[in-house]
């Protein structure tokens, strides 16, 4: 009788709840990567996540870890308060582009600048999903959203914000990398980045933020497969992938 090995299964870090995310939404992929990493690094049981306001407001239903639910944009402040009192626990925030780069801009910059030892997973899909597809700070020039229906006019709204580049200008050491999850090869690379970030937190080394370029098929108005192609053709050009900052002594 031959043995059956499972070479890939739903990670123990995820609950069995069917997510409310749209078909093809890469939040699901990113959740899974974080869950896999937490289990592989043996961190799940001492982790607390901080959920944002946005499509992933219900993230706490999908992870097998304790969770705090934050007001819009404030997750880095909650994470700071928690981690300062419980440095032995693993803390991560999971935030979208509105939560982190709009209302939460002060909180993320200062948490990064203080070098708070938590990890931020920053999901950038260049649009506000939950509220129905409005312009985000990361919306591309000319991109159509419900609050820039004629395309983003940069004369009026400025240019999209590159968060990883912005944070990399801070002097305090941190680990900052931008990845994407629109193809299997990119997903494998994204998992490595997320693993590096949590490994650094396990060491108590520094603040880490992984910006993940993601799709929003529903509000971009295209199919999930077309959305991966749009990301590849457009988002990657403005938001280059790669490591932008790392602490001394890292390869």
């Amino acid at each position: 009788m031959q043995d059956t090995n499972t070479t890939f299964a739903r990670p123990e870090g995820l609950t069995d709840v069917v997510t409310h995310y749209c078909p093809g939404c890469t939040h699901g992929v990113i959740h899974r990567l974080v869950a896999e990493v937490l289990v592989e690094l043996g961190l799940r049981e001492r982790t607390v996540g901080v959920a944002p306001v946005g499509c992933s407001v219900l993230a706490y239903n999908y992870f097998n870890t304790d969770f705090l639910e934050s007001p819009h944009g404030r997750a880095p402040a909650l994470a700071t308060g928690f981690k300062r009192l419980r440095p032995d626990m693993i803390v991560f925030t999971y935030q979208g582009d509105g939560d982190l780069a709009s209302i939460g801009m002060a909180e993320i910059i200062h948490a990064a600048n203080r070098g708070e030892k938590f990890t931020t997973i920053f999901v950038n899909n260049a649009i506000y999903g939950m509220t129905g597809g409005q312009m985000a700070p990361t919306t591309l020039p000319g991109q159509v959203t419900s609050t820039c229906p004629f395309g983003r006019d940069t004369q009026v709204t400025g240019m999209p914000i590159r968060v990883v580049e912005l944070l990399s200008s801070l002097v305090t050491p941190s680990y900052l990398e931008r990845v994407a999850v629109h193809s299997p090869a990119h997903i494998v690379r994204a998992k490595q980045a997320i693993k590096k970030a949590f490994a650094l937190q396990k060491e108590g080394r520094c603040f880490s933020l992984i910006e993940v370029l993601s799709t929003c098929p529903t509000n971009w108005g295209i199919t999930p497969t077309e959305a991966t192609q749009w990301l590849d053709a457009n988002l990657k050009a403005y938001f280059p992938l790669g490591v932008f900052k790392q602490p001394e002594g890292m390869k």
Partner: protein
Amino acid sequence: MAKILMKGNEAIAEAALRAGATNYFCYPITPQTEVAEYLAKRMPEVGGVFLQAESEIAVGNMLFGAASTGKRVFTSSSSPGISLMQESLSYMAGAHLPCVILNIMRGGPGLGGILPAQSDYFQATKGGGHGDYRVLVLAPSTLQEAVDLTMLAFHLADKYRNPAMIIGDGMTGQMMEPVEFPESFVESELPAKTWAATGASGRKPLVIKSLFLDPLALEQNNIALKEKYDQMQREEVRFELYKINAKNRILIVSYGTMARICQTAIDALEGEGISVGLFRPISVFPFPHSQLREEISRANVETVLTIEMSMGQMLEDVERAVAERKPVRFFGRTGGIVPSPEEVMEETRKLLDTKAAPRRSRKA
């Protein structure tokens, strides 16, 4: 235990530490910055966490995260900064998290001024943030009382799993008086904090949140909150009576530093043969409605005079308690002006000299 001469801001800071709250997040703002400066030096001595945040918005949210660990946490600020914390107070109340907030009130609204005021009464006692929640609010009038109430506030915040607030004013924060701290803080037993986020090890994960998308579930959360506030109204009302007797013609209602000034005025008036009593609420939420109603109902009381350093905020609670049984008058100074005992005496004499029919309160 020896008495130490301390500034109000510092005494309150020390009181928090003595209550086991060695975790403090802050942002500087006049007239309470000394709390932060004192703790910046003192916290390393007790091995606690001190963090100056980027704004009061961040402070309030750091309190949420820190309170989620189950440890005692607090902050101090003044009126405009407290406005910025209203979001987090709403969220913490909705998530049943304890914390203590010190508001050293200053003149408002807006940037206002930096001198004492009592114009955050509405903000403190009626919510300030959105939703059906309350904050347990205590108002000390001496520095010793501030020390005692601060320590009590941590116990009550844990007992009710709700934010608690100490309201002082610029005088409370800046003046110096001798205070005593207990050798150790003796508290009645509190339940274990099984709600704290400690990691899903050997148990199901827990979530600390205030979001309930199902309206029935959200209503249940609100009902649970209301039950706590009803219990506070039954068990946590605190007030003090000063020179209340059958000869009083006027009953003054005042709190905090203003009440002390009224006491001086009352003592001086007694010397002139005029009998005035003082009803001093110590808990302004829960407000001593029924107790005040009982006091003003005595036949000898002709007028109820509310005195605040505001345009009349506690006045509305007084009017509600008095329920039109007696005329309610108001005297207040604002803008940072602290009334003198002589002004209080003058207002009182004016009320007694009037031959006209009792007038409605100035706010009517």
